């Protein structure tokens, strides 16, 4: 398939328009940055939206403490190069303060715990808009998300009472205490994001490319056996494989895929031919059919 770039261009124009609406309609916006490809794409779009001025809002990373080290290195370098402000809030602090309890056992993850840390940070800084890299193609509950999605004081999503969004018009009017989650790349697919990264020649963390890694197999998925973050039973044997990651969330819920894609063009080709969805390697969505919707109602991104 040889597609021209006009469809990526129209998605880019739409996302830039949304970025500018955020800066204009809100007093304290923030861009939620995870170090993943979607949030890196958001940073690129924000840079383009406000050029030659700097991005008029900070980035914030909700750090689970279970990040791939490559992601953190990458994050710090990006922020420095672009001269941006970075706020980091740690899930570990929420655990230490007794606000959340660490999960234990075979499928333990800090993914759910992020919500509390995020909501506390929103309150601490009085953020009224949080820009995120969620896409409608990721998951079926996300397919119903608006571009401007209003959250109440508790960060909750009232999915049955969402504001209609017509034409290009984004209604950012909110009451004190409410905030809006903004999704500028709502209409992008995983392939669109990769095609954009390729077209714009955007640098991304090395774990997105094929590399040798110590891993173990469980439930037909490949888990990182490095850094000791993922719980591993003794009988689960460690092997070395050539893998890459399609998403880079919390290490404890992000599985790797076998891949020999060492460059962006190879990754784009691999995704085009792939028959497994991106979140197919995310164990947090597999907990139940309604896993994502439940987490979103509670304030998860």
């Amino acid at each position, binding site marked *: 398939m040889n597609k021209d770039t006009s469809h990526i261009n129209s998605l*880019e124009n739409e996302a830039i*328009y949304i970025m500018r609406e955020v800066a204009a309609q809100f007093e304290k916006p923030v861009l939620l940055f995870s170090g993943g490809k979607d949030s890196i794409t958001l940073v690129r779009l924000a840079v383009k939206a406000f050029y*030659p001025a700097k991005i008029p809002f900070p980035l914030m990373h909700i750090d689970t403490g279970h990040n791939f080290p490559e992601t953190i290195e990458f994050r710090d370098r990006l922020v420095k190069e672009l001269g941006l402000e970075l706020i980091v809030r740690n899930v570990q602090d929420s655990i230490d303060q007794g606000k959340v309890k660490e999960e234990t056992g075979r499928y333990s993850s800090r993914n759910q715990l992020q919500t509390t840390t995020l909501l506390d940070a929103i309150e601490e800084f009085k953020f009224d808009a949080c820009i995120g890299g969620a896409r409608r*193609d990721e998951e079926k509950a996300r397919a*119903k998300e608006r571009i401007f999605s209003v959250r109440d004081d508790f960060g909750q999503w009232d999915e049955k009472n969402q504001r*209609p*969004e017509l034409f290009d018009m984004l209604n950012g009017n909110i009451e004190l205490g409410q905030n809006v989650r903004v999704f500028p790349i709502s209409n992008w697919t995983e392939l669109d994001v990769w095609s954009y990264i390729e077209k714009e020649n955007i640098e991304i963390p090395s774990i997105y490319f094929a590399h040798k890694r110590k891993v173990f197999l469980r439930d037909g998925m490949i888990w990182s056996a490095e850094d000791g973050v993922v719980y591993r039973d003794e009988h689960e044997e460690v092997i070395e494989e050539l893998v890459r990651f399609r998403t880079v969330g919390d290490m404890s819920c992000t599985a790797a895929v076998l891949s020999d894609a060492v460059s962006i063009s190879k990754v784009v080709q691999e995704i085009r031919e792939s028959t*497994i969805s991106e979140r*197919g390697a995310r164990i947090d969505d597999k907990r139940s*059919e309604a896993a994502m919707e439940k987490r979103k109602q509670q304030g998860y991104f």
Partner: protein
Amino acid sequence: MEVLKIATAGSVDDGKSTLIGRILYDTKSLTTDKLEAIEKTSKQRGYDYLDFSLATDGLVAEREQGITIDVAHIYFSTAKKSYIIADTPGHVEYTRNMVTGASTSQASIILIDARKGVIEQTNRHFFINNLLRVKDIVVAINKMDLVDYSEETYNKIKADFEALMSKRDYQGQKITFIPVSALKGDNVVNKTDKMPWYEGQTLLEHLEEIDKADIFNIGTPRFPVQYVVRPKTEEFHDFRGYAGKVYGGNLSVGDDIVVLPSQTKSKIKDIYFYDEKYETASRRSSVTITLEDDINVSRGDMIVKDGDLPTIDKQFTANVCWMDSTQLTAGSKYIVQHGINKVLAKVDAIHHKIHPDYSGIDTEVSGIGVNDIASVTFKLNKPIFYDQFKNHRTNGSFILIDTQTNNTVGAGFIQ
């Protein structure tokens, strides 16, 4: 290649979600893990077929009730095009979602159950697509397998629908009829041998050929200023750029322009897209413009070509589609958001309610309820710069925001 956005409309149980699931399945857009999930759930429920609606009905309540209650966006692509389908609900009470879905779509699929034919809901779906001037409409007559693939049934439904077409305001629509069975996959992506009497294209074949080039191209250039870019750095010390999206037509360097509302004249100096300078900004591109003269421009102002001004007025009349459970009444106040511009508005007069099933109008109206469509005159606290909706899709539409709840409570199309 660009993205083709399609809205779907149909009544409860017309099989919309099944149709979309079928398109995804037959175009091999369903990934193995999603397909496995559908197979597993279909089996658990004891179905002897794959329930493709499971692919799109995203919310728990929907899966429990087996119906679609909110707009879901579905993405797939073929070698030729990328598609975004807005799957909109068919219930009377969710008309607002249908208006929403249709507002961003270039084409619409209206589903009709072959056993039921054209019903009141069909009239409404067609009415809304007509009100929003959606250019391409496919009437998919579904469940043909349940009427023995009867040509006679198909012809009867087609004739009934054609009777509706004479009543529409907007005659520029292209309407195509296709007999399908979403469940069996007849004429959706693949041609069927069950209906040899039908010689037209399959649904996907038709969608592949829709030319969306001029759908948003009507009207003249309008550039609402979204954001003023002032870097205040040494390199860009005096830079004052106006960021926004171009609607309607192109803007080029050297164009004589007028800034509204001040009506100050100037010329376009540069057009930036990031660090590149463009000679021309094409429609729907998000650019930053600088002007030859140092004049005062702020968010909400509009840059237009000299000699090509929109209407500048503190009042207008529009067809309003009401979306809130609290009624719209004469004398009440709302925020009108016209593009990016927000102004306070008062309902000056409600002229009449329009029956969205083409059965006429009500002139004795006290209030406008949810899903009602009415002709309303608004007075504004300051002027806006608008075109008629029929001449300019973006500059002729607006939304209404409740001043207390901040909710989007209605949408309007300026007459």
